[in-house]
């Protein structure tokens, strides 16, 4: 691993003539400085949103799910839409840290820390919905299979909702471990630079006594690989299982075998979009342009156009099957309730199509991929589109299913439903602001790790070195 050679043609992953100390300085500095005014403003807004969300949930728990505008036909609306949306977003981090690690994608180092943090926070947000959407949340522990005194009463292992419980809790645990194990060396760096006793103590606890010894590094590397190996199937399985909530049902529009790959692609799509949103802000606010380079942005935009096209194909396949299956219930759902722009929810389907399939095609152009404004704008558009996708799947399938007698009146959310969603934004950004303030937003150790093969100055040097023999190169520069 250490003897990595990287072509001169590849873009450097770290710009500027950085040495190890500069890297540390650049990344740790914001943690040590007093937060900017902007940080306070952002943080307080996030906390305010969070409090509104807490109040919305309080109403839902105290007065019933009737605080939301769901009805006898539409049993899930914004709640599960938001759940799937957040879970989807929570895919990018682990994908970046695990799958890209296994695939030896060096560019992941610039973004993995923030992306993983985002994953953790997104999954935390996602988890709120299945919990608080329960009619009797105080009985939520019934979903846990623990030995109990209620006779032979056990959970129902046939239920996809139960699979969700396992899938998401496992995913969250592994992602959290993965993120935190990566954070340990950097926490130790902060500890070592600490200028107050308290800081030293706290970061000391947070870094679990990391001493930077070779043995520590070796274990750290092994652990990363093991966790990456564990997370990789999870990245694919979590959204597959979330898609089973729908795919295993009998409702036209839900009962679709295409869902698992389609959901996973959509999840990566939205996850990368969310990473982009955050990265564009972070690199600006924390002046991390050297670490989160245009190359990073471009790489992620490539993933976005790829996964966006995959979901596009999935949409078209569904439409085709709606006709080809000659199943009139499915045909009605796909061709009338969704694809017909003039049907009550036609706007959401075409909103989804525009945001997810049409607009990302702009990233076929290199210039667009490397345009920060376009990237930021598109990343927001994609996440709006992905929200529509989940809304389309859930609401337009339910509101007009088999029996026309039960077709629903128009469903639009109540203020408390919106409040809950807004509240999860509050939770997400509160966590993210705290994270950005108290932890290195870029993996210092990992940047240092690629610095000598992919840093700009080293690449420049490499021009001279390339003429030498590899043996000599290794001898001079490997350590």
């Amino acid at each position, binding site marked *: 691993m250490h003897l990595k050679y990287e072509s001169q043609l590849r873009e450097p992953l770290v710009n500027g003539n950085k040495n190890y100390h500069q890297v540390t300085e650049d990344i740790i500095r914001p943690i040590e400085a007093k937060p900017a005014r902007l940080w306070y403003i952002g943080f307080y807004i996030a906390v305010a949103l969070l409090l509104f969300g807490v109040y919305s949930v309080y109403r839902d728990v*105290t*007065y*019933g*799910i*009737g605080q939301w*505008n*769901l*009805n*006898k*036909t*539409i*049993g*899930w609306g914004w709640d599960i839409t938001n759940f799937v949306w957040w879970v989807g977003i929570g895919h990018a981090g682990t994908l970046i840290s695990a799958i890209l690690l296994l695939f030896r994608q060096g560019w992941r180092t610039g973004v993995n820390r923030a992306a993983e943090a985002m994953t953790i926070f997104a999954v935390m947000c996602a988890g709120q919905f*299945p919990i608080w*959407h*329960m*009619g*009797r*949340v105080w*009985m*939520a522990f*019934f*979903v846990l299979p623990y030995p109990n005194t209620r006779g032979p*009463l*056990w*959970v*129902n292992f*046939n*239920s*996809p*909702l*139960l699979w969700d419980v396992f899938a998401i809790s496992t995913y969250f645990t592994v992602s959290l471990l993965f993120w935190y194990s990566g954070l340990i060396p950097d926490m130790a760096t902060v500890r070592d630079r600490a200028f107050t006793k308290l800081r030293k103590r706290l970061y000391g606890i947070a870094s679990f006594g990391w001493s930077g010894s070779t*043995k520590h590094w070796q274990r750290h590397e092994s652990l990363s690989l093991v966790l990456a190996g564990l997370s990789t199937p999870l990245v694919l399985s979590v959204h597959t299982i979330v898609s089973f*909530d729908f795919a*295993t*049902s*009998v*409702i036209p529009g839900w009962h679709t075998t295409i869902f698992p790959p389609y959901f996973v692609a959509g999840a990566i799509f939205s996850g990368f979009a969310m990473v982009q949103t955050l990265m564009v802000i972070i690199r600006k606010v924390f002046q991390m342009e050297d670490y989160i380079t245009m190359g990073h942005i471009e790489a992620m935009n490539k993933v976005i156009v790829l996964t966006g096209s995959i979901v596009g194909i999935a949409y078209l396949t569904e439409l085709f099957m709606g006709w080809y299956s000659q199943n*009139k*219930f499915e*045909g*009605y759902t796909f*061709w*009338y309730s969704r694809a*017909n722009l*003039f*049907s*009550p929810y036609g706007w959401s389907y075409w909103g989804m199509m525009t945001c997810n399939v049409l607009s990302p095609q702009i990233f076929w152009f290199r210039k667009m991929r490397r345009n920060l404004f376009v990237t930021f704008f598109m990343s927001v558009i994609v996440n709006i589109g992905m929200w529509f996708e989940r809304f389309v799947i859930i609401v337009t399938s*339910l509101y*007009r*299913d*088999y*029996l*026309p*007698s*039960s*077709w*629903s*009146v*128009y469903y639009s959310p109540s203020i408390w439903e919106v409040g809950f969603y807004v509240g999860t934004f509050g939770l997400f950004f509160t966590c993210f602001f705290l994270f950005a303030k108290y932890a290195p937003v870029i993996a210092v150790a990992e940047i240092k790790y690629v610095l000598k093969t992919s840093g700009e100055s080293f690449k420049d040097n490499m021009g001279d070195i390339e003429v030498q023999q590899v043996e000599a190169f290794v001898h001079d520069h490997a350590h």
Partner: protein
Amino acid sequence: MEQKKHWQSFGELNQSEAYHKDVKDEFREELPFVADESSSFLQAKAPRRDFLKYLGFSTAAAAVAASCEMPIKRAIPFANKPEDVVPGNAKFYATTYVQDGDVISVLAKVRDGRPIKIEGNELSPLTKGGTSARAQASVLDLYDTARLRFPTIDGKETTFEAIDKAVAGAMSGPVVLLTSTITSPSTKEVIAQFLAKNPGSRHVTYDAVSYSGMLLANEATYGKRAIPSYHFENAKAIVSIGADFLGTWISPVEFSRQYATGKKIDEKKPEMSKHIHFESVPSLTGSNADEKYLHRPSEMGAVVLSLLNVISGQHVTVTDEKLKTGIQKAAKALLDNKGAALVVCGSNDVNIQILVNAINEAIGAGGKTIDWSVPVNHRQGIDADFAKLVADMNAGAVGTLLIHGANPAYSWFAADAFKTGLAKVKTTVSFNSKADETTELCKYVIPDHHYLESWGDAEAKAGHYSFIQPTIFPLFKTRQWQDSLLKWSGASVDYLAFLKTYWSAKVGGETGWDKALQDGVVNPATTGNLSGATYNAGPVTAAMAAVSAAKKGGKLELVLYEKIGIGAGQGAANPWLQEMPDPITRATWDNYVIVSPALARTLLNIDLNIGGEADAYEVNPPKKVVKVTVNGKSIELPALIIPGTQPDTIAIAVGYGRSEKMGKAVVGTGKNAFPLASMQGSTVSFTNGEVTIAATGDTYPVALTQTHNRYDTAQGVRTEVMKELTLAEYKENPTEIREDREKELKPWGGLEKFESQGTIYPVYDRPGIRWGMSVDLNTCTGCGACVVACTAENNVSVVGKPEVLRGHEMQWLRIDKYYSGDMDDPKVVFQPLMCQQCDNAPCENVCPVAATNHSSEGLNQMVYNRCIGTRYCANNCPYKVRRFNWADYTGADSFPDNQKGIVNDVVLDMNDDLTRMVLNPDVTVRSRGVMEKCSFCVQRLQEAKLTAKRESRPMVDKDIKVACQQACPTNAINFGNANDKDSIISRTRVENPNRQFYVLEQLHVLPNVTYMAKVRNLEEEAGEKKEGAHA
């Protein structure tokens, strides 16, 4: 191999002192366990030794504090066990539901001293155990919080002694007793005595919706001011001209049962009666008709006249082509079935009814389908009598007015005239049990008992007696009005003694009386000898002339009609009835203006033929408000577009807009349409030919429980949902439905092998009991009695209008209505839908906590206290029969007192301690956040099994009747053990397999409810129909 010692630090290598210290001390720093007595507890570092103490104290403190807030509920046990009360065992008392002229023999189910449910009395030959929605809901009226609780003088509480004294002093002649129709023979005797005591007094009968046109016509042609018995079961051809005899006309429960006999179709003998219906506004009866023709309300006379003309061999006089065909067809059907044909008409016009009598004479209905030997007593009021009373009152010619049952201040079209008249009456007494619009204006109020607290009798038709006995001690200081009359006429006995004496003489002494009370009915000894009456054709010519000369209607005409649940306002204060969706419009809690799709295009700018506009109309509850003006009186109501309405006709239901003193249920529900009626000749007319209508630009939300009404979509007809065919098709190919199903299931092994090949899972045997239900769509009329019966039996919550608007209604059983064919004049089918108790239930496998699971008897059971409310089961139910407790509708929540402001006053009122007495103790009251649904009345099944077990015999059909089945007046619902070869349910399935189908069968959810396809008696349209249904 040599064991290498790897040193980990220089310390270890050098074995330094510091290293040893580190190794020895696991905790390098001092542990924070210091108990500093001087600082307070909060500032102290964690007091380790005291931690458990504090934990224990705070937990206990929290528990004690929490339990202090537990509400205290008092239950007072019997000090001595009453001899014949076994706690937990229900008692059934035969009694009679009487409301105005409506009479239905019923059994009241009494649990622990409280009547909780009304069941039909199967001993009555008229209803044979059938009931109506209103009879089912009447038990709730007993516990109505708005009932008057004590006698009052000028609104101030008083005692019976005081009020008796006061009335005796105030009663001055002429005395008039104003009542709604009295069907009780003993009460008539009491009235006779009272009138005899007060010279110059008289009794006036007032019916809000009267049949005086018919009574007077019968007087003119048959010499009897009476209504004969109708026998729809004997009619092979039925022509109804605006008579909603299955819904609201005269005696709908009895007629439904008779009608269903003719509609029941047997595979061995595929014959059924033919019903042709003429109407202006869609009615329950019209929806059930084989053929239906639309006419303007003002044309009703012309239709009757034309029919009479064609029958007597002349030409049709109406010009409309469709209508002309209809009249010719009707005439042909009647003439082809002479002696087995019947014409009924809903008009309140004397001349029209005379012509109807002429038709019935011409087709030989007398003695065959009309029985004059047994006149019925349901409606006796004559509009002109009441109009005269109002005139007398205004002229000051009435000294005392005693009112029972009648409420003209609300329901008389010229209510203001009545009110001014009433102000001129010196002494006004009301016996009404609620502070209705008339009672409010009366000086003396002596509220009557509810019928479940009363003694009494009723004679629905001559010789058919039904008895009323109390099932509960009177809840309030009320008194039977007959007692008041007896007292005031100086009688020494009370009404009970009077009644007993009256009947003992007739039914064979004490024993006979006891038996009569036990049975609830005394039936005529001989039945079956129907007879006609001497017919006098004299008035016909004049009537023909009058009808021909009748004024033509203007551009737009109005019809006022009664809703099946609300009637003329009697049901308006009953939340169960308000929340029961109207069979035709599927609306709750309001009245509205019914307009045709054609009128909607011009008036409301909504074209239901344009997908987008139809969708927008359907999915948005706010409907456009229109202003209807008749005779200078205006009313503003939302407009509902109902296909099958005559394009130039609009309709408004009466019975709404009641005084707020009637109860919480009437607040904000609809407007009173009675003032739009008018006096035409000697009778009140509920139609008007000169109406103007305009959209106001406002909208008003209408709580509809069904928004979309067609099962054909752009993607094809959903025949898997609803199957219907014509009699011609059925005769031609009796197995058509089976072939349909075969075709649908072909990819999965066809009908035979579908159960095993439609799944990848193994198929299980289902031995023992297997509950099954069968619903015959041919005999189901869609009347809604089952819906209210289910509500009463299963403690189904009332949620109020705001919640229905949000799609939160809780009914376990609903009656879906679908249109097919032409938008302007569609065919209508009804489909009662309850939980289908699927053997392969999609709801069961998605519940994460197994709160809904399958019983060994085929029931899909719901465990409320296990439910955590994810609603996944409801989403995955293809029938959408699952209902979620969105809010605390029952007051049974773990968070007490959080209903206020969340649910409306009606729901709060339903959870009043008084109203809660109606709850069935056998059924759990569901709390907020859990799912619920039809259980096939599992409490009844359990009881039936226990009964059989106690008697050591197998369970049989007679042990069990589920609530919907019991209430059904047409026996459209069969229920039982499908594994028992002798049960009705298996016999139905085995003997009539060809019409049988399962809803959404191809989903392989394996429902346990079978439906029998609807067959319409249509001959010639066979080919056309087929095209329509399968296009």
